[in-house]
């Protein structure tokens, strides 16, 4: 997989959630071009070509970012804020993935310009279905400016 082919950027600190998300994507043949990053700091380094991703061509943007809200160091809201504030990255669709339906988080995310806000269900059947739906929607159904 080259940098150019990345379609889904999964930012998730929870190993289990990451595994289950990958499994769900795999199940629906959406896992070929997924890159998994483990926290907000790594995500920003990747997106802006800094730190361990120094020199990465940042014009190669993922087609969608699945962003966990609650993460150590830099949380999902902060990552979202930085992405949406920057002219180079503001058009990348961001889906906020979280465990709780906290009204304040929902409002804040939308104020920052989130493209979707999804609560991860406990049951794997539902979880898997939602991940698949999101993948199809952002990669197949939706048209994003190139």
């Amino acid at each position, binding site marked *: 997989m080259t940098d150019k082919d990345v379609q889904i950027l999964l930012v998730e600190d*929870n190993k289990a959630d990451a595994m*289950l998300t990958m499994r769900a994507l795999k199940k629906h043949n959406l896992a070929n071009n997924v890159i998994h990053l483990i926290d907000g700091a790594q995500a920003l380094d990747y997106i802006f070509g800094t730190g361990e991703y120094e020199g990465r061509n940042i014009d190669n943007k993922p087609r969608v970012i699945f962003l966990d809200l609650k993460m150590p160091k830099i949380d999902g809201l902060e990552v979202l804020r930085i992405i949406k504030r920057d002219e180079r990255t503001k058009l990348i669709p961001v889906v906020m993935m979280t465990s709780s339906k906290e009204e304040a988080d929902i409002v804040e995310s939308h104020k920052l310009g989130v493209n979707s806000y999804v609560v991860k*269900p406990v049951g794997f059947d539902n979880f898997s279905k939602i991940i698949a739906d999101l993948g199809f929607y952002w990669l197949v159904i939706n048209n994003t400016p190139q």
Partner: protein
Amino acid sequence: MGKIIVDELIVANQELAFEKREKGKRAAELVIANKELVFQNQEKEKRAEELIIANKELVFQNAEKEKRTAELIVANKELVFQNEEKEKRAAELIIANKELVFQNEEKEKRAAELVIANKELVFQNQEKENRAAELIISTLANNKEREKAEEYLERLAAIVEFSDDAIISKSLDGTIKSWNKSGEKMFGYTAEEAIGKNISLIIPPEFIDEEKKILKRIGNDEIIEHFETVRIKKNGKLFHVSITISPLKDNSGIITGASKIIRDITLSKKYEEQLIEINKDLIIQNKEKEKRSMQLEEANKELESFTYSVSHDLRAPLRAINGFTQVMVEDYIDQLDEEARIVLEDILANSIKMGQLIDNLLAFSRLGKQRVSLVQVNIKEIVASAIAELKKDEPNRILHITIKKLEEIKGDRNMLKQVFINLISNAFKYTGKKQDAEIEIGSYRENDQCIYYVKDNGAGFDMQYYDKLFGVFQRLHSSNEFEGTGVGLAIVQRIIAKHSGKVWADGKVNEGACFFISLPDFPDEFDKQ
């Protein structure tokens, strides 16, 4: 021809004869007229003579009138003169009157001043009262005024004598000079006992210094008003008083002593002390309450972050448990025996159940923060949509649902919808095992409350456990019997409490339950937690 002439002649003759007769008549008439004229002339002459006489008379009368006119003019002049004199006198009288009025006013003023002076004197002592009375009486020249003044003085004396306040006078060396009835009542000394004694008679030893200061101020012509201190009775009992002290002067204005008006304020002092005590208590209570409310607020915040953690952090591992179990089922089902499969299914079901519990707990705790937004709510509509939704989940259930009159009410639409969904879904759930499930939903008014009820003929409940009915996670049925997390009714109660309403229920095992909610027409407190 001749005949005609004859005829004419005859006619002419006849005429002539007629004329002659006429002339004769007229002559006779003329004679009569002449006689008449002669008579008239004679009459005229007579009248002329009479007129001459009358004229003479008139001339005489005129002369008389002129005389009288002249006399009248003279008289008039006299009158004018007299009038002028009168005006002069009137003017003089007005001035005199003004002077009198002024003098009267002055007298009144003086009288008023004297009354005031007398009032003071009255307070001083009986001796001076008598003199003041004499003074007033001699000053007010009129008898009526004198009577009034006497009456007034009597009244003042009575006021002093029967006043509730002790009114006492003393000389500058502290000798008691007068002592009224209240003084007797208040201190226990009669006038005979008190007069002539030193004022220290009624002052507790520890307050003696205070008296010296007072006397000094009185000596400086000061009036001391409502001075609160303690005095002592004949029986040695101390009591609180409020004293007003004014200097007494003799005729030349030299201060000779003081009058004291002493009021017993034991009772009001007692009330005041009680009030202070009560106030202190209230302040302490308030502080306690503040402390408690702060603690509660603190606890609430903690609870909030706790619920947040619960909902967020507990769901993640649960998702893992469920997800990986699912992975086991999907990937390794062939390698598992029947029991292992059942165990895995149980793990899946329980993790889902726990997820629901967490969601419900979160919903319940979130309700605490939520504010009620007040609108007119069509309960009929809410009930209809709740029933429609519930029926969708169980399309094959046969239920007899009766919807009676449902009043509109002011409230939070979403919250009230939640209430009816919870109550009606309970009714659906607990009638699940009945052959002829019956549900009735209605409302009625009581005072300024609207009461809604949801009644079913389902499993009911034992009134013995009524107090557990609305508790969070409290259930009166096992999950095997009826599924549930035990949050539904707790949410109902919380929402209705937020609307300043009440929730109660009635039930009997296997016969059914009826849940009531009352909502006020004009809910006032909406920030209830």
